[in-house]
């Protein structure tokens, strides 16, 4: 049937069981083992998401707990993050690009030394608040490292797996479902709003001034109504397939002890850095 459907190779995402598939099978049946870092990266990818979530969260907590005066400790944290990035095979350029989401917080941090309270420090023509400087450094250092760790997490884990991981960490099923609806329908809504934008342009709408934004606001309203109606239809479709208000949970894909131990290396290193930083203070 339907011979014209293009057959593609099975999608590689979302599996936890395929680590071995990446080895090259030789004719005589022996396997060529990949280089060390490559193999480690695949092992990290194959880890169940809950393990990586716990490891990432734990490590971020240790970063936050590191005293801000210990510059060297943050240098160690940064070095460790870079090592992990190399191990999991995340290009450093990609990592740097992901850090852009931090920009609004940076803008806030930059304000602190200017508006902060005394004692003030004179640097050239400007006078900067000393506590403000510390606060800004604190936000910048911990924020950047935190964002970098979550970038590592999302680089090695698909959104779908992350959601499954949250569910296995006993996050309430309805919250996981809401998040997964956002993943699923974000794109649908984006397409709908894009169609509405094109329809506005097609009728000569070319807003230049703020007060011409009325049409955009109206479109946003009707986008909301459409989303609401879609929600109703989706609910009908869910009910039709036997949904009664309780989400079926999947209890599979448990992590092995060695996976937990491997992942917990992150918070362990973090705790060590933070503890040493506190003790030599």
């Amino acid at each position, binding site marked *: 049937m339907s011979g014209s459907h293009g057959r593609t190779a099975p999608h590689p995402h979302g599996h936890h069981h395929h680590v071995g598939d990446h080895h090259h099978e030789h004719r005589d049946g022996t396997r060529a083992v990949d280089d060390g870092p490559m193999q480690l990266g695949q092992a990290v990818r194959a880890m169940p998401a809950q393990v990586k979530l716990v490891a990432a969260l734990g490590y971020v907590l240790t970063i936050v707990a590191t005293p801000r005066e210990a510059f060297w400790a943050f240098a160690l944290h940064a070095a460790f993050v870079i090592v992990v990035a190399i191990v999991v095979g995340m290009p450093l350029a990609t990592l740097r690009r992901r850090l852009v989401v931090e920009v609004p917080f940076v803008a806030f941090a930059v304000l602190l030394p200017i508006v902060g309270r005394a004692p003030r420090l004179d640097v050239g023509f400007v006078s900067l608040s000393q506590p403000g400087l510390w606060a800004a450094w604190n936000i910048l250092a911990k924020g950047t490292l935190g964002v970098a760790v979550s970038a590592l997490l999302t680089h090695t884990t698909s959104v*779908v797996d992350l959601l499954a991981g949250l569910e296995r960490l006993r996050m309430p099923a309805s919250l996981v479902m809401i998040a*997964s609806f956002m993943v699923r329908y974000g794109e649908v809504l984006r397409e709908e709003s894009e169609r509405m934008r094109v329809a506005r342009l097609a009728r000569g709408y070319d807003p230049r001034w703020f007060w011409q934004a009325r049409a955009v606001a109206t479109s946003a309203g009707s986008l909301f109504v459409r989303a609401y109606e879609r929600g109703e239809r*989706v609910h009908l479709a869910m009910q*039709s*397939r036997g949904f*009664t208000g309780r989400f079926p949970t999947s209890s599979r894909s448990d992590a092995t002890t060695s996976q937990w131990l491997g992942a917990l290396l992150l918070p362990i290193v973090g705790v060590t850095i933070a503890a040493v930083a506190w003790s030599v203070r």
Partner: protein
Amino acid sequence: MNALTITDLSYAYPDGHRALSGVSLTVERGERVAILGPNGAGKTTLVLHLNGIMTATSGAVTVGDLPVVKANLTEIRRRVGLVFQDPDDQLFMPTVRQDVAFGPANLGVRDAELDERVNEALSAVDMLDVIDRAPHHLSGGQRRRVAVATVLAMRPDVLVLDEPSSNLDPQARREFAQLVLELGLTTLLVTHDLPYAFELCPRSVILDEGRIVADGPTRQLLADTELMRAHRLELPYGFSVTADSPTR
């Protein structure tokens, strides 16, 4: 035993508008019946009564030997597989695999058996190769097929397709028709795509203003131009069906 029995079904919205008045219909096992009607005829309202999403004001619906009443809803929803018009409404999970698993999981199917159901349903619609893709990355035709798989995974007795040909390109449309024939399930095809009804369903009923106004061989109904026009149903330009047109 009939696959589906609708007896004198009426439904009025809370505001008093009567959407269905005295609808009676029997569908035999293995039969494919088209429900034709203009927009607003009550087609969707009728369909939502078949699996108990809407509750009849009066009259009854029976699926196999089981009446559609609250106590039977789980089994009724297993038996009646409803495929909605917009696959984006039907496919709400992040991956095809999770979506197809949703129905049987609600029925209490777990683990290895659940995997088997998912594989079985996706193989039946020839979509096993997209199992780990996100629904919004599929083409219209693929989404439609996966939407059918989501109900096949519940091993239904009756397949109800709401406007299945909408948004399909001609090739996907033909392939989907082929799929419906191959599945061989008792099928209700709700549509105003008359050539599609003619291709797939030997029998049709016409629903207008909440009543069944005609019930007979599709060819005979489509050939009756007076009847069709009276209910805002017209074959597209260039099409004609006569009493001796070939049928499947």
